């Protein structure tokens, strides 16, 4: 180890903050080098002095007073509120902005609730139609089975040839609507 390296690590060595192997090298160098040893002694003395007198040094009351006076004389920096600085200065502006924000929020909420309501209505409107069409399709398939002579359907229908009293939906059997002559 040379003097430069030793000088760099001396404070850390004194505080016991370096690995043992490096500490051993420094210790050996200090035994051999007079100037480094002197520097080490100086550092150690200073450290012991500070340790011994720490807490005993109390600044004089005049220092405190001067310090307070100087702080009081210093200009107070304006508080920064960014874009909303004017709100701090003007209460009316703050109230107006708060009111506007509340109105916007209320309108938004109302719009959202209306949108939700219309979506629900649309869904029930759609489901109603789909339900009706599903029934019609089932009816169609039953009619097809009947047309193809499925015995279970024929038996279910039996001999009752009553006209359907609820015949308001699209007819299952459909004659040519443009027929001009009687069959």
């Amino acid at each position: 180890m040379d003097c430069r390296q030793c000088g760099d690590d001396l404070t850390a060595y004194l505080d016991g903050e370096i690995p043992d192997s490096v500490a051993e090298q420094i210790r050996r160098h200090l035994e051999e080098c007079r100037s480094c040893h002197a520097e080490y002694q100086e550092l150690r003395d200073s450290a012991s002095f500070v340790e011994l007198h720490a807490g005993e040094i109390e600044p004089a009351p005049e220092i405190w007073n001067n310090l307070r006076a100087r702080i009081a004389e210093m200009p107070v920096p304006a508080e920064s509120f960014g874009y909303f600085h004017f709100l701090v200065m003007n209460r009316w502006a703050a109230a107006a902005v708060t009111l506007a924000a509340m109105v916007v929020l209320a309108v938004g909420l109302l719009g959202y609730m209306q949108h939700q309501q219309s979506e629900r209505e649309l869904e029930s409107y759609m489901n109603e139609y789909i339900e009706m069409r599903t029934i019609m399709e089932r009816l169609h398939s039953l009619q097809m089975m009947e047309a193809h002579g499925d015995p279970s359907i024929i038996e279910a229908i039996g001999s009752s040839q009553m006209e359907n009293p609820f015949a308001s939906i699209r007819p299952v059997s459909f004659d040519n609507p443009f027929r001009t002559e009687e069959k």
Partner: protein
Amino acid sequence: MRFGSLRLRRRILSRAFFAFMLPLTLLYLPAQDLDLKKTKSVAESQHEIVIILLGKKEFVRAQEEANKIFQMKWPQSQEPVLLKELLWFSDKFLDSGQPELAVRLLETNLSTFKDNGSKAAIWKEKGYLLKRMGQDDKALDCFREAQRLEKIKLRP
């Protein structure tokens, strides 16, 4: 006196109007009736052609032939019959496992219909077909349009 003369003038005008319009109307109506009869006769044949093509499973041709019915010159009074026909064909295409063709049929012939109620019925049917095809978002849009048209129809 002045009031009396105004009434007289109105009476003369209304009589003159009827004197001219009645013969014209009487001439026009049978002609119109004849046109409708011809159109219906052609449509009747087209309908049968579509049924035959559906039976032969020639679906694309069936759809093209069906379109011809709606492209004919129909008076407004026939719109309910045409709507019934369109929805029935759409049903037939769906039954035959051709929902895409049913949708195309409805889309092609939507512009034929002037009544908002008829248009709404077509949009609903299209929505139903799209829902069956698993295109839920598009189906919802169709039902939204149908609902909008029905609201317009109901508005006094």
